[in-house]
């Protein structure tokens, strides 16, 4: 019996070894007939709501559009190659995202890498892309901290605007022009919220606006009544809520319920999406948020929005990130075509020096030494938006074009914002 047992175990081991070997046998490379772009995205988990409304509608529209024209011309292969997306679900977990990013690079050997979703995820993904020499043009996410890291991340190109790049300075200019004297800041206790709180603390006092309240809230806070009551008691002219949809929406609902009507009500990521309008209807009138463009910005922008939102529900409209993501993909495509191959180093060099007319107008990346880059704030067509007559309008202040030449305010800022509509009888 002992011999039989040993035979059994040896056979078992042989089978295991053969199975393992079969994993490592290389297959011959097929002829190049497509460009494979890999992404680790939050298809499930808490970030799915942001990903589904932010970058997802862009790549789901942009890629078929490019492929309908034959794809991207690659001179190395002498033909147009269509883009094929390879998408994995990272469950909104950074650890899973880093693993899947390496799977895309090492195992799937994708030709190009597109971004994960969220600021923390950009921070986690950028060093990996850098390690393997893959260019990473980001979508959702951006932060002042990334500026400090950019010199050591030469393959990173950040496309989204953020606090001091160049949202809050514009907001401060608008508020100062309207005569706002005091502001109450509520921010989510994470990287994003802390950063905005810090930049509010620098930019608002520069314009003579005093911060009379600065309160952090945990991400899972559901009852905003104490915070809103405190803001109401402060008598601040402007209420600035910098969180994500999970904070901005309940803060808005509580403000309406308690009848808190400051002259300015600003909501961070969340208030710029179509689902904010569908959730609150006419109550959104006068609410301020971050926004880059709308259909009135330019004919090119109107064309983009018409194409992008055709057949899509209002919920996935995003007046902040969408134009920036679209422009970054256009620059990326132009750079890939110029390189004509999947050479990442050459792509990095071209991206660093390309200036292209996109939906934003002249667009380029501001490079940080020999490191990575941020989409130039001078390229932005807007920073601050306000819901006016059911549309999200881009608003500005007098003389803003001196700093931001592409800036196109599509309406005058409404100050004070209208009162919340009376509850239905």
């Amino acid at each position, binding site marked *: *019996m*002992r011999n*039989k*047992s*040993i035979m*059994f*175990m040896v056979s078992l*081991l042989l089978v295991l*070894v053969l199975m*393992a070997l079969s*994993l*490592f046998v290389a297959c011959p490379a097929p002829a190049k007939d497509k460009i494979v772009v890999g992404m680790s*995205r939050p*298809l*499930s988990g808490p970030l799915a709501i942001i990903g589904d409304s932010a970058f997802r509608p862009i790549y789901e529209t942009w890629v078929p559009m490019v492929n309908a024209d034959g794809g991207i011309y690659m001179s190395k292969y002498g033909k147009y190659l269509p883009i094929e997306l390879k*998408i*994995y*679900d*990272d*469950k909104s*977990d*950074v*650890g*899973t995202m*880093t*693993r*899947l990013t*390496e*799977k895309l690079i*090492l*195992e799937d050997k994708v030709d190009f890498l597109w971004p994960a979703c969220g600021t*923390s995820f950009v*921070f*986690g993904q950028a*060093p*990996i892309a850098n*390690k393997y020499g893959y260019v990473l043009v980001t979508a959702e996410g951006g*932060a002042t*901290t990334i500026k400090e*890291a950019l010199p050591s991340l030469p393959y990173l190109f950040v496309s989204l605007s953020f606090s001091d790049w160049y949202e809050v300075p514009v907001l401060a200019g608008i508020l100062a022009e309207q005569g706002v004297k005091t502001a109450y800041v509520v921010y989510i*206790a*994470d*990287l994003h919220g*802390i*950063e905005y709180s810090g930049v509010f603390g620098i930019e608002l006092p520069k314009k003579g606006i005093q911060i009379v309240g600065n309160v*952090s809230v*945990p*991400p899972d806070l559901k009852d905003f009544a104490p915070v809103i009551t405190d803001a109401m008691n402060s008598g601040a002219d402007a209420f600035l809520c910098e969180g994500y949809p999970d904070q901005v929406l309940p803060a808005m609902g509580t403000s309406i319920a308690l009848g808190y009507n400051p002259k300015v009500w600003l909501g961070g990521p969340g208030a710029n999406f179509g689902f904010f309008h569908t959730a609150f209807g006419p109550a959104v009138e006068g609410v301020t948020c971050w926004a880059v463009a709308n259909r009135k910005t330019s004919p090119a922008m109107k064309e983009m929005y018409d194409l992008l939102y055709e057949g899509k529900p209002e919920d996935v409209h995003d007046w902040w990130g969408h134009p920036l993501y679209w422009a970054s993909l256009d620059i990326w495509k132009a750079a890939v075509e110029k390189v004509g191959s999947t050479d990442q180093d050459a792509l990095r060099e071209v991206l660093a020096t390309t200036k292209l007319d996109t939906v934003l107008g002249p667009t380029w990346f501001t490079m940080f030494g020999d490191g990575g880059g941020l989409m130039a704030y001078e390229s932005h067509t807007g920073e601050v938006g306000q819901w006016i007559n059911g549309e999200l309008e881009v608003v500005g202040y007098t003389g803003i074009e001196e700093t931001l030449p592409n800036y196109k305010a599509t309406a005058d800022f409404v100050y004070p914002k209208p009162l919340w509509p009376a509850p239905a009888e």
Partner: protein
Amino acid sequence: MDIIRGVFKMPRLWWLISLILLVLLATLPLYGSAYTVILITAIIMYVILTVSWTMFFAPTGYLSLATAAFFGIGIYTMAILGEQLPLLPAVIAGGLVSFVVALIVGAITLRLRGVYFTIFTFGLVELIKHLLLFWEINVTGTRGRFVVLENNNTIFGVILGIFVVLMLTYYLLRRSKYGLALRSIGENEEAAAHLGVNVNLLKVFTFALSAFFMGAAGAIMATRWTYVDPYVAFNVLHSFLPVLMAIFGGMSQLYSPIIGAVIFAYIEEQLLTRFPEYFMLIFGVILVVAILYLPNGLVGLVRKWWQKGLREENVNS
């Protein structure tokens, strides 16, 4: 059937098989692809969390949901000390800090039992996360930290080392008089105390011992994640997954949670990459089925089939 029965009666052969598997694992970077090394690293991480969780739960019956807390402490220890210390001392520091925290927390709370203890341990994850957040915001002014990037093969070697030490520790603990005493606590805590077992000391020490391995695993995995903030480090998924993996594999044998964690992690990987749009749906169904129909886990099911086969064989003979 004789063959299988023979195999189960041959501990030396099991040692030999374990050794061969270990050698195959240890030499993986020599013949495996780079991604295989990364994937196996992630699977071993889950195995460590599951086995160290089982090390405390299986004998005592105390259901802790503090895994994410100790894992997160390890992650943050590496984020803070990673640039000051060489890799191995930083990993050991991650384990030691978790050990000390578990010792303190265990001394205070292991008098609680049942659902009270479980709820407290779950609360501990949130407590540490928010304390750290408060500290980072108000004292250090840090908004997340970049972690020193390490070579994937080095990470694999270290996590494999942690796994080996954990398995040896668990094996020795199960076979020692302390293991017996722990099991007596699980059977009847009062009776164990009357028999002279220092119940509290033993519970607290084992709780802290399991936390050491969770912390060490967190410390080395932080170098793979490259960036951490309190939300990344103290993800409650890391509290629930080891429990599910242990249930999936079973807890009766030393190897049961390993099998549960390996299969569970592998299924997850396959679903995330092959069926990304349906990951949650399929995974949810698998979990429900496992919990409803595998009360003793996969290993329990296999043993049940084996024993059923044996009975039928005896009847026939």
